[in-house]
């Protein structure tokens, strides 16, 4: 049992100054792989350091295994941490770096030796044990840092942007290895990153933070498919979601979204009810991911679903850039309704400077309140639909 609970945790570095972390409440269950993600300065590292005990908690409570831990020394918390810059001890060789935490606990030498070799074997660094950190490459240092956390045999691992100093290829490889370590150990991992690919691929739960507050905490698929607000929607997903400002119009029986250039997009039935009722005549923000834009002729590109007329879901823009991604192709377009991007099959026609008409899959669109920026259809972790 190793449950970590944060209750309204706040961090204020100096009195009267802005909060670095504000009212963070979160329950982290045993064996979870929780990812804190957000732009730099959002408070994710600070939150992690408060869990580690390296930063004092200004207000709120931190509970671990049912005990209040606000004032427990870092070394008493039974955590292992991997730092962004690896924090290897420069004057010790790799073996001593791995063994340090056990040596200072005066553990039996044979047991230390066994654990060090086990961790080194797991990470493939056995041949480096006699070397000093100064002579290692970035990836090797990273492994040593992870290894020195592994030897502790603890239930909770804290990782502070552990892969950010590695090159792209190594990062992908270490990502796979981390996922495997997590599967093997079954320990709780709390991981901080600003890279949403790491967040999406590694996490069993993603905590999206911005300006010291949690914006949304949920499973990766939920975060992607049902973002709680415009910030989460824009932050998760690459390239990020397209946003269009518009107004809800209910001229007759059907509801429409009028974009700034006058385009009228009919709102599909499953969304129409609430929008007609509460947002008629009001401003909303439409969010749609690049992969939900299509060329004419996509399955069901014309005709009707329910009473909504799909042929109205089109938007024209001028192509300003075209990126070939291999299996797919990105088009970046400008229109009077706003700039947008689309992820399309490689065969798509259209050169830079040409006009292009694309269809929006409105059944997969998100609607955000223009004022609060909240997802209109988001309630308590799940969409209404």
């Amino acid at each position, binding site marked *: 049992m190793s449950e970590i609970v944060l209750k309204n945790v706040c961090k204020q570095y100096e009195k009267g100054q802005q909060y670095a972390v504000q009212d963070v409440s979160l329950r982290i269950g045993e064996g979870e792989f929780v990812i804190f993600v957000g732009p730099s300065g959002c408070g994710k590292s600070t939150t992690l350091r408060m869990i*580690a*005990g*390296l930063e004092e908690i200004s207000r709120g409570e931190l509970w671990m295994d049912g005990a209040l831990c606000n004032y427990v*020394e*870092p*070394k008493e*918390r039974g*955590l*292992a*941490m991997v*730092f962004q*810059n690896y*924090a*290897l*001890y*420069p*004057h*010790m060789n790799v073996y001593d770096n791995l063994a*340090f*935490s056990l040596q*200072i*606990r005066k553990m039996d030498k044979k047991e230390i030796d066994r654990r060090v070799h086990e961790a080194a074997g797991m990470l493939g660094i056995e041949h480096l044990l006699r070397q*000093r950190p*100064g002579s290692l490459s970035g990836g090797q240092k990273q492994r040593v840092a992870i290894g*020195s956390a592994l030897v*502790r045999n603890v239930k909770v691992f*804290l990782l502070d942007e552990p892969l950010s100093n590695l090159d792209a290829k190594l990062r992908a490889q270490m990502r796979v290895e981390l996922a495997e370590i997590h599967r093997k150990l079954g320990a709780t991992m709390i991981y901080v990153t600003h890279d949403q690919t790491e967040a999406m691929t590694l996490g069993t739960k993603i905590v999206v933070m911005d300006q010291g507050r949690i914006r949304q905490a949920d499973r990766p698929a939920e975060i992607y498919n049902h973002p709680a607000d415009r910030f989460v929607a824009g932050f998760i997903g690459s390239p990020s979601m397209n946003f269009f400002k518009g107004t809800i119009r209910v001229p007759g029986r059907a509801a429409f979204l009028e974009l700034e250039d006058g385009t009228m997009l009919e709102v599909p039935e499953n969304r129409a009810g609430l929008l007609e009722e509460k947002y008629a005549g009001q401003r909303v923000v439409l969010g749609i991911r690049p992969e939900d834009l299509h060329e004419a002729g996509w399955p069901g590109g014309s005709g009707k679903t329910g009473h909504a007329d799909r042929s109205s879901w089109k938007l024209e823009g001028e192509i300003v850039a075209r990126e070939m991604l291999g299996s797919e192709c990105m088009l970046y377009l400008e229109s009077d309704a706003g700039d947008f991007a689309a992820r399309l099959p490689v065969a798509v026609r259209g050169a830079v400077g040409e006009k292009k008409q694309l269809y929006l899959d409105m059944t997969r669109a998100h609607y955000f309140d223009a004022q609060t920026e909240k997802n209109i259809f988001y309630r308590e972790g799940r969409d209404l639909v």
Partner: protein
Amino acid sequence: MRKAARKWKGSSAYLYLLPCFCVFAVFLFYPFAKTIYLSLYKTNKLGQAKLFVGLENYKNLLTSEAFYNSMTVTLVFVAIVVLGSMLLGLIAAVLCSKAFPGIRVFSTSYALPMAIASSGAAMIFRIILNPTIGIVNKLTGLDINWISDPRYALVCVAVLTAWLNSGINFLYFSAGLGNIEESIYERASVDGANAVQQFFRLTLPGLSPILFYTLVVNIIQAFQSFGQVKILTQGGPGESTNLIVYSIYRDAFFNYRFGSAAAQSVVLFLIVMALTLVMFRIERKGVNY
């Protein structure tokens, strides 16, 4: 033609060294050579070499009890000074390595001895250690004549010198501590190390290159202490604080035995050089990382 140009290019480097060489020649190389030369002669009162005696000055030295006394006194003095000044500097630097309100006042006062002239400090110590009005006796309630008692005089001079030399050590160690990455302490505290373990397993090894350098500089500096002895004790009481540099000064400018003084200078030079060489040999083996 081309060959000449290359030759000029190669030797032009010496041209750049010339100004520095001139200064060294006047103030270092010439006096050094002259000292060795003088050490082989008997001199008149003006310090002019008069009679070549070969190694007799050295022979006299090595058979004189006064010389051995002054060697012993110097070694004890150096040991106290080096240990004291390095400990003082290290403790002060560790205390000032964390930011706290008023840190500037503290670090300035720890570094201040560096800026005090040894003779000035000795004058102040004379008042502090004065048996009737000095603050040391007043505070401790003791009645000790610190400077005139052969048992305490050397320790007093050594403590004064240790304090004087601690300022620069404080600076060296502060710089050394600044070079140790903060995050390894954070990792150590999560790893479970307490403050004492962190100091001995992280701070000291992290300081080891600078510790070594400071040790060498301190030893050389301690061997050359002069001003505080001159002001505080004049080598007395008896011969108890007659450090070798002071003994050189006394032989040359009181007794007008320039030959003997020169010979002592050469011996001092040999000792310091030997120590330095030995220490660099040790350093190459294990201090670096």
